[in-house]
Every structure is written in structure tokens, then in C-alpha cells.
């Protein structure tokens, strides 16, 4: 499986993602420029990553402009054909704006940017320590959509404490039902606010990010 990492002009986690995938996970990575459209070098077994950052400055709603970039049209087609797509932080926001994932990401409940380690867990995993860094990470969707997400096992990660207890107390942004990451119904598009690429290195003393890529089947 090879990876494409999209570079928007305001992406700032693109190089971190490249570094983590190449050097810590040993993957082949191709950087993709937002003005280009060609992704014919990828098959649906491959994965396109939308990294964190401030794609086009995000002075409008986060990700609202990125959705219209030439590269995103190709990524949307790729996803609709079943290709794997992962969006992290700003990438998650872009996936929601593009309607590849349901719901929206609102400003954090406490109205401040927050960067720190948090714990998240998948249904059958232990708690994993992963950093967050966002001002607009409060996942929100209507009750009906949320119920569907639950029914279809589309909720990938929820905020918890280090023992894996899921509770609003450990939710850093007020996300509904403590949601930190979701996937689409088909299971090929993934979005999450925490940054697994910031936790794949021994020198940083946190390898839990590798387990996230494993859970997503992207290892």
C-alpha cells in the first residue's frame, strides 16, 4: 500500500505525515500538490491522506475552501471508487465539508485552541495517548445521523481517560458522544481530530500513533 499526502498551501502537518509514514512505518509516500489533479498512480488499495494545518488559511469555515480545490475533486472521485482516504484534523474538517463523511466540526466548546496529549480508544482497543491541536474539533451531527453511525459501527475513536473510561470529563472539545474519529459507511474514508503522526517515534517517547494506523488497517 502506498500513500499520497495532499499539500494545500496552508498545510503544516504534511511533512510530519510524510515523515511518520516513510520513516516510522516504512511506507512509500508521494506528495500531491493541491493545484494538480492527477492521481492515476494510485489504485484503490492505496491511501490518500489529507493532513492537518490551515489549508487555505481557514478564515472562512475550516476546510470550506479546500473542498473546491482541483486535487480534492480527484480525491472525491477516488473515494467514491472505493479508494482509501484518511483526513487528520484539518483533513477531517475537509472530509466533512466535502460530504465524504457526515457531520461537522464546530469550534471547541471552551472556545479556545487546545494542544495536548489526550486518550482515545476504538471499541475493542485499550486507551491510546495521541496529541490533539485544534480550535474547531467539536464533532457534531443530528441524533439520527449519530444513531446511524453507532448502528453501522462507524465511530472509530472516542475520547477517554488513560484507563479507557469514556466520559464527557475526558472530552477536550465538547464533541457529541465523545467522538474523536469516524469512518464512512463503506469503510474506506476515515476522519479523526487527534494526530497519530505525532506519536510514531521512539525519540518522542510515544508510539501509540502506530497502533492507530493498525486499527485503521493502514499499517
Amino acid at each position, binding site marked *: 500500500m502506498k500513500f499520497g499526502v495532499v499539500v494545500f498551501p496552508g498545510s*503544516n*502537518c504534511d511533512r510530519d505525515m510524510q515523515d511518520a509514514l516513510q520513516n516510522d512505518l516504512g511506507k512509500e509516500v508521494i506528495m500531491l500538490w493541491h493545484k494538480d489533479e492527477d492521481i492515476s498512480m494510485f489504485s484503490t488499495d492505496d491511501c490518500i491522506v489529507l493532513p492537518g494545518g490551515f489549508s487555505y*488559511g481557514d*478564515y472562512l469555515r475550516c476546510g470550506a475552501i479546500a473542498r473546491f480545490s482541483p486535487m480534492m475533486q480527484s480525491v472525491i472521485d477516488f473515494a467514491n471508487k472505493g479508494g482509501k482516504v484518511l483526513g487528520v484534523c484539518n483533513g477531517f474538517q475537509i472530509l466533512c465539508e466535502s460530504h465524504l463523511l457526515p457531520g461537522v466540526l464546530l469550534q471547541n466548546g*471552551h472556545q479556545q485552541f*487546545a494542544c495536548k*496529549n489526550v486518550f482515545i480508544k476504538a471499541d475493542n482497543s485499550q486507551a491510546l495517548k495521541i*496529541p490533539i491541536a485544534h480550535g474547531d474539533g467539536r464533532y457534531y451531527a443530528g441524533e439520527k445521523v449519530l444513531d446511524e453511525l453507532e448502528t453501522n459501527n462507524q465511530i472509530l475513536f472516542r475520547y477517554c481517560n488513560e484507563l479507557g473510561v469514556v466520559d464527557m470529563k475526558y472530552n477536550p472539545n465538547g464533541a457529541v458522544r465523545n467522538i474523536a474519529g469516524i469512518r464512512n459507511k463503506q469503510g474506506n474514508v476515515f476522519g479523526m481530530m487527534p494526530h497519530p503522526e505525532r506519536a510514531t517515534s521512539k*525519540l518522542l517517547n510515544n508510539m501509540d500513533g502506530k497502533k492507530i494506523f493498525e486499527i485503521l488497517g493502514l499499517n
Partner: protein
Amino acid sequence: MEITVKTAEELRLTAEEFELIQQKLGRTPNFTELCAFSGMWSEHCSYKNSIKWLKTLPRNGGRMLVAAGEENAGLMDMGNGFGVVFKIESHNHPSAIEPFQGAATGVGGIQRDIFTMGARPIASLNSLRFGNLNDVKTRWLLAGVVHGIGHYGNCFGVPTVGGEIYFEDCYHTNPLVNAMSVGIMEAKKMISATAKGVGNPIFFVGSATGKDGIGGASFASANITEESTEDLPAVQVGDPFQEKKLLEACLELAETDTIIGMQDMGAAGIICSTAEMSAKGGVGMRIDLDKVPTRQKNMKAWELLLSESQERMLICVQKGKEAIVLKIFEKWDLPCSEIGEVTDDGILHFYMNGELEAAIPAEELVLGGGAPQYTREYTEPKYLSLIADFKMLDVEDIVNEVELKNTAEKIIQIPNIASKRWVTVQYDSMVGAANTSTNSPSDASVVLAKGTGKALAITTDCNSRYVFADPQKGAMMAVAEAARNIVCSGAEPIGVTNCLNFGNPYNPEVYYQFVKAVTGMGEACKKFNTPVTGGNVSFYNQHPEGAVYPTPTIGMVGILDDFENRMTLDFKEAGDVIVLIGAQQNDIGSSEYLHKIKGVEYSTAPYFNLDEEYQMQQFVSSIIKQKLIQSAHDISEGGLIVTLLEKGFNRDLGFDITADTTGYRKDAFWFGEAQGRVVVTVKKQDTKNLIAKLTDAAINYTVLGTVTALAVTVNNHNWGTITEWKEKYDTAIEKIINKQNEPIIHN
């Protein structure tokens, strides 16, 4: 318009300076030319009242690759062909008036100084000073400054990895916002701030120019008064997304062979960048100001010259290679216009629609050229006699164990000491995936310099109350503490950038503080072999009631060649033995305890001995390399007890202190801030070895006790658990802020 001395004075030039300008030009300048001199001869650009003393600092040697002040930032050799580029700069005056934009553009400005050189910034730090946190204005300033730093830095994508925040009444009107950035590059690819080669085109790139920030440099060179808010247009507005694109475009450009020189536009905008680049290359320039992209119609020549609109660069390009430059900036959707060319006459000619607006010899405008350099008078401040009169015996010592514990509880919650997490959580401290201090805390922030195989240890330090008490020794202590923090992180200190924040230099008592502080700083930098690579002077941090504490902030960089030598500050395991290295003193001078708990404003600086300090640091460095110790954390504000508690917080480990304190005042032993002390832990079986080495090296030490699973015990008294102390430490600042504001809860 007739130009008279009155016009000059309105532009904040003196009558003597006006006379000098007329002499140099051989005529009376027109208004545009006078504006150019006003910007360039402002304190901010010309260093006219500081340069004589700055030259006494150690400004070369060691690993320095460019001389101090010669380029936009300092460049030092990291080995293997790599260089580290770093600088600190103030944005105090704008932040006092408009904290959000003031701080944001401070962060933006210092980043440009780094990537103008061709380096990629990898870490930012901020050294901040505010008034009393219980004051509503302080909370407004704090919230605005922190939001501004976060807004700019988070989007720009460089992690904010460290810094310091102090709250003292003297900063009520004049907060200090000092921003530092550190970058890495292949040393041989450094881009100089030079223009040369007659006929080479001059490009203007980045944001369009507006009327924001006009006169910013001269605004920063005056006291802050009631009327200062009327200077609001002198505060710039930042756009971090634009700067992020500018960064990537400039670094892409740096990989080509098209650039002769590049300089960012900061203080005094176009006039400063054209003058400095020309003077450095010994050339002149012909500039067509009407070709500068503007965001407002009908801007006048003087407005274009002085505007401090952000995110702009001036580039001197090799003739014939213009197309390459245009293509890169088009790729990044940034304005890029050829606005002039290099000439051979040394004169800056500015045209507007074909009309000559100004003609000034570049050399006459710049520091080291025609800009005036003053020798200022100084006299010993009267308050120093109050400090000399301080007698420790007049302060009643702590009488019993209950008072000791109660005092420790108060100390841990003083805003200067308590956790700053309310602030730091708002900064992206991890972008870049290189900040190793997130999960492994140490006294300096340790950041991986990816691609070089090495890491950097970075810190900013200055306890300004020590400098107030003894300007010379206080500045030495700032250097010593910075070095100590780097040594305790396992790295070797290599160089300094300084941000000298003082009051009005025309006040002889303020100037005394400046002279003594620079002298002390120079002595200490020589001792630690950390030359001063550059920095910034900020005078006029003064309001009608007086000046701020003299605050010579030290930004220091250390190098960690082998990551195996990395040292962290936290207790590792219950049962490890706690040893204090360095001498305990019967000293409470200028401590947080004395100032904040006992309310003593005037007291002597803490104990400090430069030679002992250096010897102690060399020793700590050697035992880290020998892998003898488990942790190292220096003693600073709040004294020994704060150091011990901070060592416990990361892993929820407590301590049992059984050391004999006979012969010491209780307050001095636990809360004194004597310098030159580091608390280490060592595995029980290695204790003997450590003590033997300490004895051999003739270094004072005290075996304090042992690390415990959770309980804090002091002289057989139960002080509860470490988690109870941590809760107090973590939430103290949030409690004060949330008392009056809407509660903001970070889980």
C-alpha cells in the same frame, strides 16, 4: 510644505539630528526624506543609544558563522555542514495597545528573520511579562497576547516549545512580549541581507502594502502614555496564512541560484530593507514606488516607505533569472513585482510615477554608517541604597512545621511559579513532530533537528527582580540560569540571543541599569563560551510612574550531539536517592517567598558566584555523560521545595526528605533562591559513586532523601500526596482567571 526643525521634532527626531541630516545631505530634506531618517534613526532601527555598549559583548568566536548583527539573525555551526539560525525580538509597544495583533505580528516578524536567511524555523519560544494577574487589565492583555501568539504560530506551523511568563506590578502599563525563533539549514546556503551587482533587479514579494504600521519603529521608541492609543495605526495586522506561503516560497527560492540577497520588511518597512541591503553591498538602488502592490489607493511616497505591513520581503535577483522567481511566487499565489534595480552610486532614488520623491545616500541612514551613536550619562539609581539596607535578620523566619507546609502551599500557587498550562495549551507545541519535551520534560526544551542527526536544547531566561536588585549580577544570573537549563537537559550551550528591555535611556538611572546589565551579561557569556549572536534592544518600556524592572532576556541554544545524553527533570522510580548539587545558603534575597509572601520590595540579589556556577555545571554535564544520574532539575523561583515538587509531578512520585537542616534558616533552606544548585536523582547503588565524584571535584552537596511512590514527607511530617500538590499547582492560574471571567475548563 516647508520643512523645519518643528517638522523633524514631530517625527520624533531631535533638533541636533535635524541639523546632522542637513549637513549630510548638504541641503534641507523634503518631507519624504525626513520620514526616511525618522524611521531609520529611530532607536528601534539605529540602536543609537545602545550600540556602544553592545559592542562590549562577546560577539564572535565559538561556533559563530556570521558576526553579531551582520545578518537578519545569528548563525552557528551545528557540525556536519548544518547551521542553527536563531534570534529573539521584542514586540512590547504594539502589544501594550493591541495585545492580539501586537503579539501575533511579533511572532510573524521573528519567523521572517529566520527564513530570510534560508533556514526553516523549527521552534518558537516566548518570554512574557505582565502586571498583577488579579487586575482585569492584565487578564485582558494576557488573553489577547496568548491568543495572538497562538493564532499566528499555530497557523504558521512552527511549534511553541517554551518560554517564560512572569507577573509583576511594574509591567502593568508596559507588558513585555519577546518572541524567539530557531531554525536549521545547510550552513553554506545562507542567504545574506545584501544587494549588489549593478543592474540586478529588485523584487518586492509577499503581501500588498497598506497604511498599517506606519511609524511603528518610532512609535516603539517612545514612552507609553494616555495618548498612545491614538497611535493605533502604528500597530500592524498579521496574516499567518500569507506568511506560511511566503516561507515555503522563499525556501523553494533558496534552493535555486537566483538570489543575490534577501531581507524581510519589518520595522521601517521598505526604507529599512532598501537602505540596509544597499549599504551592506556598497551600492544604491533605483526604486519605482508606484510598482509596489498596495491595498489602499493613493498612498503617498512616505507612507509606502514607512509602512510596516507584514509578510513582505525584498529580494535582489540575478539579472536574467527573473522568470524563475516569478514562477515560484506564482505557484504559491503571492504577489511578486520587480520594483527597481541596483545602481552604482550608493544613493537610494525613490520615484513615484516618474517623479523623484527622495534621494538619500544609503550609508547615511544605517547603523554603522551615518546614523548617530550616543554616549549617554548614567548614575547609580537611588533605590539601590534601599536594597543595600536590606537585613535578612529583620525578616522573621518560619517558626514551625505547620507554617512551613502552609507557606509551601502558598508558594506553589504564586502565578510566577504555578503551572502555565492555561497559556501553553493554547499553543501548538507539537507540530513538526520534533518536540521531545512533551513526553519527556526537561529544564530546556529539546527539539529534534530532523535531517541533522542532532537535537537542540532551547531556553529563554531572565529573573528581572534579580536584575533590579543588582543589574550586573542579575544579568549574569540570567545567562547562568539559561546555561544551567541546557546543561540539565544533557546539551552543550553554544550561543545567546538577547532581548534587552529597559525604560527610557535618557534617564541616567535607567541607563545605569542598562550599562551594568550589558557588562554582567558579557562577563557571563565569556565564561560559558556562549557568544551573543544578535538580538534586540527595547527602550522606553516606561510610563509616567516609572520604568519596568530591567529585563535583559536571554535566549540560549544548546546542542545535543548524541541523543543518548538527553537528560530529563522528573523522578523516575521510588527508592532513587535525591541529591542536591551545589551549596545551600542562608539566603532569601529577592526570592518569590520574600517578595510575594513577606511583601519585601527591596532586597539583595540571591547568592551567586560565577566560577562556582560554571564548575557545578561542568560537573553535572560530566555525570550525565557518564549515565550516572536519573534526573536533573535546577533550583530557581520558589526554591528547593518547588524543584522537588516539580520533579514529582510528571510520574506522580513523591519524596521523603530527611536531610539535616541545622544551621540554616528554614525559609532559606526551602524557599531561598541562591543560584548554582541542581537537584539530581541517582539509583541507590550508584549513590556512593556519585558522592565520591562530588568529593573529588570539591563540589558541595547534600543528600536530601529518597523518591517515594506517592507520599510527600518532610522531616517526618506528612505533607499529603504528590497528586494533591499537583492539583494546586496546575489549577492556581486558572482559578484566578476564572474567578471573574466565564469559566474555561480544559480537562
